[in-house]
C-alpha cells in the first residue's frame, strides 16, 4: 500500500479540487459545478498560467488521476465529467499560451533527414543557461539535492508521459517510440528501469524516492514542465508535439547528463548516485538519433500535417527547460532555495 503525502492546496482551485476528490464520485451530483465556473474565471484572469501555482497544481492532480500515485482517491474519478471538464479548461489556455509564445519557424521539408537536422539545429542553438554546467562546476550538496528533487517529478515516472502516444502512432514512428521506451523501461530487466535507477540516486542522496513526496516543495514551473508532457501525451491530436518534445528532450540529454555525473562525483557521491546520469550519457546518444530520424522524422513523412506540431513540441521542451533553468540559477545566485520550502537536512524515509 503506497503512502501518499498530504498535498497542500495553493489556492481556491486546487483546494476545492482536493476536497472534491476526497468524496466519492456520484455522492453529491452538484459537486464540482462551482469549481468548474471558478476555474473558467481563474484561468481567464491568470496573468501567467505557466507560473500559476494554483492552476498548475490542479492540473498535476488531474493528470495524476490517469497516472496514479499522488492521492488515495476513488479511482473512478479518472473518467468523471467534472474533473475532465476542469482539466480541459486549464489545458486550453495552457496550450494557447505556449503556442502564442512559440510561433512556428520556417518549416523544413517533411522528410525524415531534414526534420532530424532541423531538430538537431534547434537544440544546438538553444542558449538557455545551463544548470548542468553549474552542477558540474560549483553546485553545493544542498543545490544538488534540490535539482534531484525537481527532476524527480518526471524521472520517477521516466518515459511515461511520452508512452501515451504509442497507440496513437502507426508504423515506423510507433516502432521507433517503442524502441526508445523499451530501453527506458529496462529492456525487460526491472532493475534497469530508468525510473528505478533514479530512485536509487534519490536514496543515495538521503532523499525519499516515494512518488509525490516532494510535490509540496516544487514550484509551479516544475509542475508545468511535467504537465506539458502529460497534456501532449494524453491528447491524440498532439502526438506530433509529443514526438518533437521527446526528440528535443533526448537531444539535450547526453551532454548535460555527463555534466551532472561529473558534478555529483565532484561532490563525493558514488556510483549508486551517478549511475543514472552515466547511463544516460550512452543511452541518450542512441535515443536522440532514433527520436530525431525514425520517430519525429518518419512521422513527418507519414503525416506531414503534423510537422508544425513536431517543431512546436521541440520548441516547447526547450522553452520550459530555459524557464526552469533560469529559475534555478536565479534563486541559487541569490543564495536562496529553488524550492517552495528548503529541504530538511535529512529525510526520514517513509
Amino acid at each position, binding site marked *: 500500500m503506497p503512502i501518499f503525502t498530504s498535498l497542500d492546496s495553493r489556492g481556491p482551485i486546487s483546494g476545492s479540487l482536493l476536497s472534491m476528490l476526497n468524496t466519492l464520485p456520484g455522492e453529491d451530483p452538484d459537486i464540482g459545478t462551482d469549481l468548474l465556473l471558478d476555474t473558467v474565471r481563474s484561468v481567464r484572469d491568470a496573468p501567467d498560467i505557466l507560473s500559476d501555482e494554483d492552476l498548475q497544481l490542479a492540473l498535476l492532480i488531474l493528470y495524476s488521476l490517469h497516472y496514479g500515485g499522488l492521492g488515495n482517491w476513488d479511482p473512478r474519478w479518472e473518467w468523471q465529467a467534472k474533473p475532465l471538464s476542469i482539466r480541459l479548461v486549464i489545458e486550453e489556455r495552457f496550450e494557447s499560451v505556449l503556442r502564442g509564445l512559440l510561433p512556428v519557424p520556417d518549416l523544413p521539408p517533411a522528410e525524415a533527414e531534414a526534420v532530424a537536422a532541423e531538430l538537431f539545429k534547434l537544440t544546438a542553438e538553444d542558449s538557455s543557461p545551463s544548470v548542468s*554546467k553549474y552542477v558540474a562546476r560549483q553546485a553545493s550538496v544542498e543545490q544538488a539535492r534540490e535539482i534531484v528533487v525537481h527532476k524527480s517529478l518526471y524521472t520517477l515516472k521516466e518515459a511515461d508521459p511520452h508512452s501515451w502516444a504509442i497507440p496513437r502512432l502507426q508504423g515506423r514512428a510507433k516502432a521507433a517510440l517503442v524502441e526508445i521506451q*523499451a530501453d527506458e523501461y529496462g529492456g525487460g530487466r526491472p532493475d534497469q528501469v530508468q525510473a528505478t535507477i533514479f530512485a536509487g540516486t534519490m536514496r543515495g542522496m538521503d532523499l525519499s524516492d516515494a512518488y509525490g513526496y516532494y510535490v509540496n516543495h516544487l514550484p509551479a514551473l516544475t509542475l508545468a514542465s511535467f504537465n506539458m508532457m502529460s497534456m501532449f501525451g494524453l491528447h491524440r491530436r498532439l502526438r506530433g508535439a509529443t514526438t518533437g518534445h521527446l526528440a528535443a528532450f533526448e537531444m539535450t540529454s547526453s*551532454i548535460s547528463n*555527463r555534466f551532472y555525473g561529473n558534478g555529483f562525483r565532484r561532490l563525493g557521491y558514488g556510483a549508486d548516485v551517478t549511475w543514472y546520469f*552515466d547511463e544516460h550519457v550512452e*543511452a*541518450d*546518444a542512441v535515443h536522440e*538519433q532514433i527520436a530525431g530520424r525514425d520517430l519525429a522524422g518518419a512521422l513527418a513523412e507519414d503525416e506531414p500535417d503534423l510537422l508544425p506540431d513536431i517543431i512546436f513540441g521541440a520548441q516547447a521542451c526547450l522553452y520550459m527547460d530555459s524557464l526552469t533553468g533560469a529559475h534555478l540559477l536565479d534563486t541559487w545566485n541569490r543564495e536562496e532555495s529553488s524550492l517552495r520550502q528548503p529541504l530538511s537536512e535529512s529525510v526520514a524515509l517513509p
Partner: protein
Amino acid sequence: MSSQQRSSPSITACPDGLLLIRGDIELLTGTGDEITRKRKTIALCRCGASTIKPHCDGTHKLINFTTDNPQEPAAKPTEKSTTGSSTTDLQETVSDELGTERRTPSS
C-alpha cells in the same frame, strides 16, 4: 528507411555523428574480446572524441564533427586536420566545457 528483416543487422551512418548498430552483430575489441552491449541498439563513436569509446557520448556535437567529405582534397595527404584546429585544441575545448572531472569509462 529499409525494408529489411528486423533480425538482420544494420548500421546507420548518422550524418555528422555516430554509427547506429541494430540487430545481432558481434562486437569485439582489437584483441578479440567481446564488448559488452548494454542495450539492443547502440551507437559507436566515429568522431574520435567520445569519453566512453567505442560508444558515442554526444561529444561529436560539441566539436562540430561533420561527415561531409571535402569537395576537393583541400589538405595534402600528410596533413590530418582539415578543420583548422588541431585535435589537442578540440580536446581542450571539450574538457573545459565539461569541467575538470572526466568520467572514467568503467563506471
